[in-house]
């Protein structure tokens, strides 16, 4: 990795230059078979699922070969940008639901509005379908959703004499966590920069990350509601040894929990599979409960995360791409995917598929109070730069919340309006 003089300029131009070179697509073979190129994200499908799906798909569609590449979340925005700008884009790309608006605005995606009927558009999850639409047209096809729950160790809860099912409010949660946070055990491992969790606490208080007025967005971390959300985060974070200056990926929180000293983490239910994979001794000792809200009646607000499938405007085989999406988001494979990966299926009518899964059940409770990040192309710039993370670290390490929040809000405002 060697950057020459003017690293900035070169990187730019590299990206730009991608649009200039166009290796011919070789995917149409001589035997009339077409290859559909697909990008899926890390942890979107397991190896086994991928193999089974590919085999089944190729059996049903003998004229189409499937080539799936697994991409990492880190830096995916730039990778998709480069792909959309090239003449050799993949045919199907999985994109985070918060990212679709930006790419749709740029004109790089195929408008799939007239295909929504055959793709079962009538009962899509709104948390996936809405971010996938831009100016009334549907670009992103809902793929799967997930929101965060509390993964906890049943054995440690039992030892401390706590009934996880009884935790319904924030106070009960804090009490239980404080009780667990004894000796070598961390009550909760909450890294300082898990901003999705903070967003939930802010929504609980009635605040938001950013608000729109007169077509202009501005950061809202400095409202009294948002400051109360941060105060709760700080209180909770102190009941464990989560590093104050990093997020859930550094170090990966599943690996931290796998070491056995942590009673709870906030994660999507799929995280439990990773924990058990890293430490098989914890098999059967992990369970889930929804993030508690302020009162027993309402669960805590959560960010509805998830993915949409998009087809680049430059895709060589748009028809085959739609066929692929149709199969992957169809009844059969959606149900299998939801069970295998602990995801919420893309349609409300399929929710019963995961009814028996404890992780998905906890997730479904939270999903009733699901929220989305601001639905505007400018939001992707905020996530790319992420002033929220700096803000959280600053407050957790003793900064003045009001002052830091004002600064962070200002940074969010700038980032959201920079692109326009």
């Amino acid at each position, binding site marked *: *990795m060697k950057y020459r003089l003017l690293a*900035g*300029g070169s*990187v*730019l131009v590299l990206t730009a230059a991608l649009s200039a070179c166009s290796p011919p697509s070789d995917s149409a073979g001589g035997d009339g078979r077409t290859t559909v190129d697909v990008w899926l994200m890390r942890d979107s499908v397991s190896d086994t699922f991928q193999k089974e799906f590919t085999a089944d798909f190729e059996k049903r569609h003998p004229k189409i070969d499937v080539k799936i590449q697994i991409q990492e979340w880190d830096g995916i925005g730039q990778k998709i940008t480069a792909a*959309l700008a090239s003449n050799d884009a993949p045919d199907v790309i999985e994109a985070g639901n918060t990212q679709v608006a930006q790419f749709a605005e740029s004109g790089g995606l195929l408008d799939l509005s007239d295909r929504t009927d055959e793709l079962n558009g009538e009962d899509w999850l709104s948390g996936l379908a809405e971010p996938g639409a831009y100016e009334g047209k549907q670009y992103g096809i809902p793929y799967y959703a997930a929101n965060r729950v509390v993964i906890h160790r049943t054995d440690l809860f039992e030892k401390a004499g706590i009934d996880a099912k009884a935790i319904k409010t924030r106070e009960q949660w804090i009490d239980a966590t404080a009780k667990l946070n004894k000796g070598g055990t961390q009550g909760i491992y909450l890294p300082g920069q898990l901003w999705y969790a903070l967003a939930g606490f802010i929504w609980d208080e009635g605040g938001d990350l950013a608000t729109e007025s007169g077509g202009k967005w501005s950061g809202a971390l400095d409202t009294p509601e948002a400051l109360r959300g941060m105060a709760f985060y700080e209180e909770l974070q102190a009941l464990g040894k989560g590093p104050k200056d990093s997020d859930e990926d550094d170090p990966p929180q599943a690996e931290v929990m796998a070491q056995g000293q942590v009673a709870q983490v906030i994660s999507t239910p799929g995280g439990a599979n990773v924990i058990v994979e890293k430490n098989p001794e914890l098999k059967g000792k992990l369970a889930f409960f929804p993030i508690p809200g302020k009162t027993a009646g309402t669960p805590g607000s959560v960010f509805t995360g998830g993915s949409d499938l998009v087809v680049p405007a430059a895709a060589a085989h748009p028809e085959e791409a739609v066929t692929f999406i149709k199969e992957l988001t169809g009844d059969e494979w959606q149900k299998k995917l939801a069970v295998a990966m602990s995801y919420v299926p893309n349609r409300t009518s399929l929710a019963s598929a995961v009814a028996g899964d404890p992780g998905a059940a906890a997730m479904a409770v939270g999903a009733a109070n699901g929220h989305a990040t601001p639905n505007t192309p400018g939001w992707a710039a905020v996530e790319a730069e992420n002033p929220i993370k700096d803000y959280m670290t600053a407050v957790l390490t003793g900064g003045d919340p009001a002052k830091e929040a004002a600064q962070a809000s200002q*940074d969010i405002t700038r980032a959201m309006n920079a692109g326009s």
Partner: protein
Amino acid sequence: MPVVAERTPAPRTPRQRPAPRPAARKDPAGRAHSLWPYALIAPAIGGMLYLLVYPLVRAVLISFQDFRLRQLIAGHAEFVGFRNYRTLLADPRFWEVVRRTFLFMAINVVLIMVIATLVALMVERLRRVGRTVVLCSLVLAWAMPVVAATTVFQWLFHSEFGIVNWALTSIGLDSFERYPWFANGTAAFAILVTLIVWQSVPFAAITLYSALTTVPLELYESARLDGAGAGRIFRSVTFPMLRPIFLLVFSLEVIWTFKAFVQIWVMTRGGPGDATTILPVYAVQTALSSQRYDLGSAASMITVVLMSGVLVLYFRQMYRQEDETR
């Protein structure tokens, strides 16, 4: 110098050969022969044009266009004259970044030059074993890949598992227990300076040391006989003798610190806040996070101009001094 210049043509004369006969016999063959050098150099020139000149020209063009994500994907960028430059120059955040870039560069270059000179002088005075040890360490530090070194530094200062916090806590400084270095702007800036200085001192020190060995010992001897101390000898003998090398190393270090992008991007991405955002980082952030390729290109162009400005000023100063001393 003149001695060398006069000597070079002399041995060439006997080697000159008459023009090869085949070339004279057939005209087309002769033309092909004269095209050979160009054909041979063409791939290199072509590669350079495509990899260096084309991107540069393209970046200049983009900096005069309205070029965002839409234009990147769909094409059809419009020319907007100097609008991007005006936007940048009117942005107080940009000037803050420029100020920080120069501060960063000045601190780094001064530290590098001072430490490298001291190391070079020390190596010259060491005996064989000590000299070998120091030179080997320098070469090893120098050979460390940039990203690897940056990652190591990142771990040294890690709040949870870093050896720096461990060492500070174990000597009794409890306030450093899990101290988040990268959450504090000044600390992050200082760590980056340390890293950059650590990475560049070896090159500067080895270059200066090898230059020091060329200074005739008699000069030192006579200076000492005249009663000059160490400081005076350095100022009046060593530095003037090595002025061209100092000039070279200085320029290289200015360029090196101005473009210290990789270290910052890997370690802090310009954060916390803007505390470690220097121009190249700013350009990449603007272009890739905000999708403002036009503003990013303009910022890169301004970076080039500023950097050339610094070097031109410095060269002029040095040449003027040289003329005066002659």
